[in-house]
C-alpha cells in the first residue's frame, strides 16, 4: 500500500504538470488568399513564422475552408480579399476576414489576440513600406506598452500549475485515506474492539490523525523536490512557513475525512462523500478557473473551501515569497477550520450506540 500511496500521486504530478496547460498552441491555421500578391503572401508568411500557428493548408475558396472547420481540421481561417494590396496602397486601409472556431470561448479569445498581434506587426511593416512608396510625411506615432511580468517572468504555465497540482495531490491522498480509515475498521470489526477499551475519544482521533499527517508532509516534501528538480519551479518564500501552513491545512482535511468516516457505515459511502466534496473543492479552488469570474454566490461558497486557501498560500509563498503577515488571513481561517473539523471528528466518533 505504501508504494502505491507515494508513487501514484507523483506520477500524476509529473503527467498533469506537463499536460494541464492553458497555453493555446499548435493552432490549426488555414487561409484563403484571393489576392495573391507580395503583400498577401507576406502576411501569410508572418503566420507561418509564428510558433503558435500550424499552417494546415491553403483553400481556394472560403466555402471549402468552412467545410474543413466543420470537420475539425481547422481552427482559424484567414481570408484575404481580392485587391488587398491595391486597397492598401490606394486607400491605406484594407479589411481582412478571420473566422475562429469558438466552441472553447477562452481559447478563441486567445487566438484572436495572437492573430491581432501578427496583423499589427504586419501593419507596422506595411506602414514603413507605404511611407517609402508614397513618400508621405507624418507617419503615425506609436504607443507601445512594455509589460514586465512579475513573479513568473517567462510566463511559464508550469510555475503556475505545479504548486496547485501538488496541493490537489496532497489533499486527495489525505482525504481519501482518512475517509476510508475508521469506516474500514467498522467493516473489519476492529473498531468494536477499540470501543470496548477505555480509550478516550480525542486520543483515538489524534492517533488516527498522526500517521496521515506524517504521510501528507512526506508527500509534500517529495512533491516539492520534484517541482524543483524536474520543473525548476522557483521556491522564493520560506519553506518553514509552507510546512507550518501545510500542517494546519492537512489537519483540516484529515478532520474532515475522519468526520466522513465516522458518519458512514461502508467504505463505498465514505468514498462517494469524499468525492462529492473533492470535486466541488477542486473546481471552486481557483486552481483551474479564477474565483473572481465566478458568480457572487459561488464566490461566497469558496470562502469555505480549504483548498482555495492552500492554493493561494502555496502560490504566494512559493512564487512571490510572501511572509506570514501576507498570508495571515488564510492562516487564521485554516486554523479555525482545523479546530472545527477535528471537534466534529471527535464528537461524531461514538463509542456507544
Amino acid at each position, binding site marked *: 500500500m505504501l508504494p502505491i500511496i507515494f508513487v501514484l500521486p507523483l506520477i500524476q504530478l509529473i503527467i498533469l504538470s506537463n499536460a494541464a496547460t492553458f497555453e493555446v498552441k499548435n493552432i490549426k491555421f488555414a487561409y484563403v488568399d484571393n489576392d495573391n500578391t507580395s503583400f498577401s503572401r507576406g502576411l501569410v508568411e508572418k503566420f507561418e513564422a509564428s510558433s503558435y500557428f500550424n499552417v494546415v493548408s491553403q483553400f481556394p475558396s472560403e466555402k471549402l475552408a468552412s467545410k474543413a472547420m466543420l470537420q475539425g481540421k481547422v481552427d482559424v481561417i484567414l481570408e484575404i480579399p481580392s485587391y488587398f494590396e491595391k486597397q492598401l496602397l490606394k486607400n491605406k486601409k484594407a479589411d481582412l476576414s478571420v473566422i475562429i472556431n469558438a466552441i472553447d470561448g477562452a481559447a478563441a479569445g486567445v487566438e484572436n489576440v495572437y492573430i491581432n498581434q501578427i496583423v499589427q506587426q504586419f501593419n507596422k511593416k506595411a506602414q514603413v513600406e507605404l511611407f517609402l512608396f508614397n513618400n508621405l510625411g507624418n507617419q503615425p506615432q506609436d504607443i507601445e506598452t512594455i509589460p514586465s511580468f512579475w513573479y513568473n517572468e517567462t510566463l511559464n504555465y508550469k510555475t503556475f500549475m505545479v504548486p496547485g497540482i501538488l496541493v490537489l495531490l496532497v489533499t486527495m491522498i489525505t482525504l481519501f485515506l482518512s475517509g476510508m480509515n475508521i469506516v474500514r475498521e467498522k467493516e473489519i*470489526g*476492529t473498531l*468494536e*474492539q477499540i470501543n*470496548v*477499551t477505555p480509550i478516550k475519544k480525542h486520543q483515538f482521533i489524534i492517533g488516527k490523525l498522526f500517521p496521515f499527517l506524517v504521510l501528507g508532509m512526506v508527500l509534500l516534501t517529495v512533491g516539492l523536490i520534484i517541482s524543483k528538480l524536474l520543473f525548476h519551479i522557483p521556491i522564493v518564500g520560506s519553506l518553514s512557513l509552507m510546512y507550518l501552513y501545510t500542517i494546519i491545512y492537512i489537519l483540516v482535511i484529515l478532520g474532515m475525512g475522519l468526520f466522513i468516516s465516522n458518519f458512514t457505515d461502508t467504505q463505498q459511502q465514505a468514498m462517494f462523500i469524499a468525492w462529492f466534496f473533492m470535486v466541488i473543492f477542486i473546481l471552486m479552488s481557483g486552481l483551474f478557473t479564477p474565483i473572481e469570474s465566478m458568480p457572487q454566490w459561488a464566490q461566497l461558497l469558496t470562502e469555505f473551501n480549504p483548498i482555495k486557501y492552500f492554493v493561494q498560500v502555496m502560490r504566494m509563498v512559493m512564487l512571490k515569497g510572501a511572509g506570514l503577515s501576507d498570508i495571515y488571513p488564510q492562516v487564521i481561517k485554516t486554523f479555525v477550520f482545523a479546530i472545527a473539523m477535528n471537534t466534529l471528528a471527535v464528537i461524531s466518533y461514538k463509542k*456507544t450506540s
Partner: protein
Amino acid sequence: MAKDNMIQVENLTKMFGDFTAVNNISFEVGKGEVFGFLGANGAGKTTAMKMLIGISKPTHGAATVAGYNVLTEAELVKRNIGYMSQRFSLYNDLTIKENIVFFGGIYGLSSKDIKEKSQTMINELGLHDMTNSLVGSLPLGWKQKVAFSVALLHNPKIVFLDEPTGGVDPITRRQFWEMIYREANRGVTIFVTTHYMDEAEYCDRVSIMVAGKIEALDTPKNLKSQFRVDSMNQVFLKLARNIE
C-alpha cells in the same frame, strides 16, 4: 445485590424501533463463575452482551458490571473487562507483538508490564517462533487463543467472549476451554456465548435466550433434570421448539 456478584442485570431491555431485541432480562453472575449465555441466532445474545460491555445503551432497565453502572459509568466498566468478539478483533496487519504493545498501551500498561505480560503469554501459548509474524497469517485457532490472551492483558475482572470457538477445530476448542478454566480458577469471571452444546456442559451455569427473553437459567445438571433429558443439546431443542 450479593456482594461478590460481578454482573447484576435487572429488567434489561433493548428496542430497535418497534422490534424488541432484548426483552426484560434479569440475572446475576458471581465472581469466578463460568457463565454460559446461550441462544439461537438472532435470539438477542450479542445485543445483550453489547449492553453489558458498554457499547450499546439499554432502552430500559439497569445493569452493573464489575460494580459500575453500564449506562452512566460505561468507561469504568470498560477499564475492568476484557472482550473478545465473534469477528476476530486483533489487527491482522500487525504482528502478535505489535498487537500486544498496542492494546497494552490503550489500557495504560507500562512498557515493563507489557514486556513481562507478553513474555508470560508467549511461554504459555508456545508462540516463540511466531511473535513477529503477522496476526493475519495465523490459523484461526491460534488467532483466537492470542485474542483471548490479549483480552486478559490488563487483568480484567470479567472477560466477555462472544462465540470464541466458532469455526475452530475440536482439539483447539478443548485447549481454549482449558485456558478459560485456568483464568476462572484465578478468579476471573467468564461470560461466554456459544452455539456448541458440549461447551455448555463445561459452564457453571447456563442461561438460554429465546426471542429476546431468558427462558431457562440454571446449572447444566439441573436444566437436564428439569427437562428430563440427558444432554444440553436436547434441553436447547426442547426450549426452542416449545416457544415456536
